[in-house]
C-alpha cells in the first residue's frame, strides 16, 4: 500500500511539473476544440495529435493524449447541451436533459454540472484506479501467453459482439482490423507479409491513417449529408448563469456518485464503455431518482449522472491499458500504439519499470479534468464562438489537418493513401451500421494476439489445450462465453419481442384495411 501511495505521490510530483501541466493544459484545450468540431471525436483527436507528441518525452506525450481524451468528451457534451448535437456517441445522453436545460435558460448550469461532475467522477475513479491498478499489475506478473491470449482475443470478441447491432456488424470490422494488422514485417522471423513490394508497407499499416480516416474523414462525409442551411446558432450563457442554483447542486450529488461508480465498473470491461455507461447511468436515474418523472424535460440528474459515468469510465479503462497493456476502447488503442512507438511497453511491468509514466498518466488524466473545470467554464464564450463558425469553413480545414496528421507520422504518402481509403471504407461501413471501434482495436491487438498464440504453442509444444490450462485463462474464457451467449440470448429475445409487436401491429392494420406491415429492422 505504501508503494502505491509513493507511486501516486510520484505521479502528482510528475504531473505538477510545469512541463506536464502545460502538456495537460494544451491537451485539454485541443481536446475540447476537437470535441466541438464536426466530424472529430476522441479517436481521431488522439490520433491527430500523435505526430506532434512523438518528439516529446513519453510522459508528456501520454499526458497530452490523456488530456485530449478528456477534453474531447467535454467538448462533445458541450455541443449536446448547447446545440442538441452530440459530438460523439457517448455524448448522446447529454442531449436528453442538457438541451432542454438550455431551452429553459440553464445552459450555463448544465455545463457547470458536467464539469464539476467530471471532476468528482475523476476523483472517485482516481482513488479506485490507485487501489486496483497496482494490484492487477502484480497479479498480471504471473500471467503467461495462455492468460494474455484469453484476455486479448476474448476481450476483442466481446467488444466486437457487444458493440451494438447484429453479430456481424462488429465481427466483420474486427476481422478486417486483424487482417490489416498482419501486413508488414513479421516480428519473430522478420519475413515480409502482404507488402506487395511496397517498401512503406514493410513497417505495417499505421493506426493514425486508419483511425483518422475511419473516424475523421468518414464522419466529415456524413456531416456533409446533414447540412442544414444556417444551422443552429448557440447562445453563450452569461457568467452568472454558469452557477447552478442551490436546488441544482443538491440534486446533483447523488447522481454524480452513482454515475461515477457505475462508469468506473463499465470502464474495466471490454466494450464501448463510454456509450454504455452513459445510457446505464441514465437508466439508473430513471429507476431510482426522486425526480425521475422530470427526466427528459431538463432535469439536472439527467446530465449529472451520465457525465460522471462517462468520465469515470475513461479513468477505469486506463486500468487494463496500464496493468495489462490491453486497450478496450479505440482511443486507448491509439494511446497504446503511441506508447509502443516511443519504446514504452505497457503491461504489468510498467508500474515497476516506469512508475513515472504509470502514475503520471493516471494523475494527469485527473489533472486534465481539473484543467477542464478551471479553464472551460470561463472559456465557454470562446467555445460558443467556435460553434458559430459555419461548417463549410471548418470541414476543408479539418481535412487539411487530417492529411498533415496522416503524412507526418512516418513521412509517407502511402499513409495518406491509406487514410483516404480508410475514409471511404469507413464511410460506407458506418452508413451500413457496422461498428468501427472493433476495426481499430483489432488492428492494435492483432500483433499481440499473434504473439501470445505463437508463444503459447511454442511453450506447450503445439498443445492447444494449453490455452485453457490455467484457472485464470479458464475463468476469462468462461466469462467471454457467458458474455457472448448472454448477449446473443438477449438480442434474440429482443428480436422476438419486436417481431411479435410487428405481427400484432400488422394484424391490427390489416383488420382496419390500412397499409401493408412495416417490418422492423432486427439489426437494431
Amino acid at each position, binding site marked *: 500500500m505504501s508503494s502505491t501511495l509513493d507511486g501516486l505521490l510520484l505521479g502528482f510530483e510528475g504531473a505538477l511539473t510545469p512541463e506536464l501541466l502545460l502538456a495537460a493544459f494544451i491537451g485539454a484545450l485541443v481536446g475540447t476544440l476537437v470535441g466541438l468540431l464536426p466530424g472529430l471525436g476522441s479517436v481521431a483527436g488522439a490520433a491527430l495529435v500523435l505526430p506532434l507528441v512523438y518528439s516529446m518525452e513519453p510522459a508528456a506525450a501520454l499526458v497530452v493524449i490523456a488530456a485530449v481524451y478528456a477534453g474531447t468528451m467535454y467538448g462533445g457534451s458541450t455541443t449536446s447541451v448547447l446545440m442538441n448535437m452530440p459530438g460523439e456517441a457517448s455524448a448522446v445522453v447529454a442531449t436528453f436533459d442538457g438541451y432542454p436545460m438550455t431551452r429553459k435558460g440553464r445552459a450555463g448550469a448544465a455545463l457547470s454540472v458536467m464539469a464539476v461532475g467530471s471532476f468528482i467522477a475523476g476523483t472517485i475513479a482516481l482513488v479506485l484506479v490507485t487501489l486496483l491498478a497496482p494490484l492487477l499489475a502484480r497479479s498480471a506478473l504471473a500471467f503467461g501467453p495462455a492468460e494474455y491470449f484469453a484476455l486479448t482475443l476474448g476481450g476483442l470478441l466481446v467488444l466486437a459482439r457487444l458493440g451494438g447491432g447484429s453479430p456481424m456488424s462488429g465481427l466483420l470490422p474486427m476481422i*478486417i482490423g486483424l487482417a490489416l494488422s498482419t501486413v508488414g514485417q513479421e516480428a519473430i522471423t522478420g519475413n515480409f507479409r502482404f507488402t506487395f513490394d511496397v517498401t512503406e508497407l514493410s513497417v505495417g499499416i499505421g493506426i493514425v491513417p486508419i483511425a483518422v480516416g475511419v473516424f475523421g474523414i468518414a464522419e466529415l462525409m456524413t456531416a456533409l449529408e446533414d447540412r442544414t442551411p444556417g444551422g443552429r446558432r448557440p447562445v453563450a450563457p452569461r457568467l452568472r448563469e454558469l452557477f447552478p442554483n442551490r436546488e441544482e447542486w443538491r440534486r446533483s450529488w447523488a447522481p454524480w456518485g452513482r454515475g461515477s461508480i457505475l462508469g468506473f465498473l463499465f470502464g474495466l470491461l471490454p466494450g464501448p464503455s463510454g456509450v454504455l455507461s452513459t445510457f446505464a447511468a441514465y437508466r439508473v436515474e430513471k429507476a431510482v431518482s426522486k425526480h425521475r418523472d422530470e427526466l427528459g424535460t431538463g432535469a439536472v440528474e439527467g446530465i449529472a449522472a451520465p457525465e460522471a459515468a462517462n468520465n469515470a469510465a475513461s479513468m477505469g479503462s486506463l486500468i487494463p491499458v496500464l496493468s495489462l497493456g490491453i486497450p478496450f476502447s479505440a482511443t486507448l488503442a491509439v494511446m497504446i500504439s503511441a506508447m509502443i512507438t516511443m519504446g514504452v511497453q505497457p503491461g504489468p511491468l510498467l508500474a515497476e519499470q516506469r512508475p513515472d509514466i504509470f502514475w503520471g498518466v493516471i494523475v494527469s488524466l485527473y489533472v486534465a479534468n481539473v484543467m477542464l473545470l478551471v479553464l472551460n467554464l470561463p472559456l465557454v464564450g470562446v467555445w460558443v464562438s467556435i460553434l458559430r463558425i459555419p461548417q463549410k*469553413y471548418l*470541414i476543408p480545414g479539418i481535412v*487539411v489537418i487530417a492529411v498533415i496528421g496522416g503524412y507526418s507520422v512516418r513521412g509517407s504518402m502511402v499513409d495518406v493513401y491509406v487514410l483516404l481509403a480508410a475514409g471511404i471504407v469507413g464511410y460506407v461501413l458506418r452508413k451500413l451500421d457496422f461498428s468501427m471501434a472493433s476495426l481499430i482495436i483489432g488492428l492494435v491487438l*492483432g500483433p499481440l494476439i499473434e504473439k501470445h498464440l505463437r508463444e503459447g504453442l511454442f511453450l506447450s509444444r*503445439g498443445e492447444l489445450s494449453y490455452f485453457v490450462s490455467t484457472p485464470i485463462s479458464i475463468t476469462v474464457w468462461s466469462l467471454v462465453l457467458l458474455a457472448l451467449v448472454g448477449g446473443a440470448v438477449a438480442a434474440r429475445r429482443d428480436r422476438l419481442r419486436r417481431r411479435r409487436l410487428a405481427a400484432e401491429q400488422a394484424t391490427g392494420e390489416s383488420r382496419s384495411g390500412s397499409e401493408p406491415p412495416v417490418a422492423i429492422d432486427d439489426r437494431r
Partner: protein
Amino acid sequence: MTGAGPSGATTPAHRFRGKRSGRLLVGACCVVVAAGYLLAALDLERGTLASSGPGFFPVIVGVAFLVISVLTVVETIRSAPDDGDVLPPAEQRRTVALFLVLTAGYVLLLPSLGQYLAASIFVVLVLKLLGVRTWIHAVGFGVVIAVLVSGFFIELLGVRMPEGLLEGLT
C-alpha cells in the same frame, strides 16, 4: 434465396434495397477480398503447431475472414427487410461525391504541388462546393485557411510535408 422474412409478405425487390443491399454488397466484396487474402497467406511458410511460421496466424485470420464474410451475407439475407435508404438525397449525394473527388485530388497532387499549393486549391474548391457565394470569397478564405493551418504545423510545430513546386522557397 428470398426466404420467408419474419413478416412473410415481402418481395425480392423489396428485400434487397437500401442498407440490406449495401450490406450484401459489402459482404460479397469481403468474400472476394478474404479469399484473396487467404490464398496469399497460404503461400507463406506456416511451420508446425509447435514451431509456427509467419503464415500460421494469417491463415487462421484468412479462414475467419472468409467465414465472417460469408456469414455477413447470410445474416443479411436472413434479416428482416428495412425501409431505410442508405443513400442521401441526390443533392447531398453529389456534394459528398464531389468532396471525395476533391479530397482524392488533393492527396494525389500533394507530392507534386506541395502542401501549401495543394491545400489552398483544395480548400478553395471545397468552399465553393459548400456554398461560398463568390470565387473571390472562396479564394480569399480558402488560401487564408489553408496557409494558416499548414503554416501552423509546418513552420510552428516543425512537421515536414512535401514541398513540391515550392521546394527551396519555403
